[in-house]
């Protein structure tokens, strides 16, 4: 079975996020009112084959802990979507 994993990696709540702060300030300068907590992170999309969704999830978990997210300062979340292996989209 073929899946596309959408993985989000963000910095952990206690970690300084100067980029989030800069984005918030830029939005406020543009006139957006009431802008609250702003965090900047990464989106990683990975197409993978697995026996089923559970197996795909386990693989993605390991990818996150072994490479994609830094254990000290980042946390991750993801969702999986089944995909048609023949779909032409690059």
């Amino acid at each position, binding site marked *: 079975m073929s899946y596309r994993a959408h993985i989000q990696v963000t910095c952990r709540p206690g970690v300084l996020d100067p*980029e989030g702060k800069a984005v918030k300030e830029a939005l406020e300068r543009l006139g957006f009112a009431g802008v609250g907590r702003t965090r900047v992170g990464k989106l990683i999309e990975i197409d993978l084959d697995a026996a089923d969704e559970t197996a795909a999830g386990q693989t993605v978990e390991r990818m996150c802990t072994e490479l994609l997210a830094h254990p*000290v*300062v980042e946390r991750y979340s993801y969702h999986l979507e089944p995909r048609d292996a023949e779909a032409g989209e690059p």
Partner: protein
Amino acid sequence: MSLSVGVVRFPGTNCETETVRALGSTLADARVELLDHRRGDLADLDAVVLPGGFSYGDYLRAGAIAARAPIGAAVRRFAAAGGVVVGICNGFQQLQELGLLPGALIRNRTLRFFCGDVHLRPEGRPSAVTCELDRGAVYRIPVAHGEGCFWAEDEDLKRLEDRGQIVLRYCDAQGVVDDGANPNGSLGQVAGVANEGGNVVGMMPHPERNADRLTGNGDGRVFFRSLAAFCAGGAR
């Protein structure tokens, strides 16, 4: 018996040439060679240096992919056996990604890359790049990085301090450690960290960029002399 030092080059490493040159000119007796990132065995070396640069373009996170290159496992084994491993700038990032040093190095709080001179104060336990430094002295060394802000959980930072693993801090020209002298926002003004044994050290500043009087005041040389002294002192 002459010291044998390997300087690792990954795709994207930029600072290996001057690191090799600084080691060679500071340590008359040393044999210095470049190591390919695919090398699997380091046993015949006394010390390994991970120099600065943008290995793998800093893709994903600085040092993340380099740490997972073939030589990564060899570096872990070498360090576990007591071998001296020094990480400079990107090399420091690689050592954290390898799990050989604690904490993380995140983006400078100004969000800007900063290249300039900083002042450093040595402290803590003797380490492979600080054991020959004079405790009361201040050293002027160039930095050049965009992600040099040292971060660790409060308890971890405290433990590092208690165990003398913080070996370099940013200070002003008079040696006063404070936030105004900190180029990147590092917690505790931390510029360099060692493992418990002192044989694995990471530092953000570039001593190899101040290893002679033409390009600076030569303050970088003592960091390399420390490396030789630490190896001779035989932690292995």
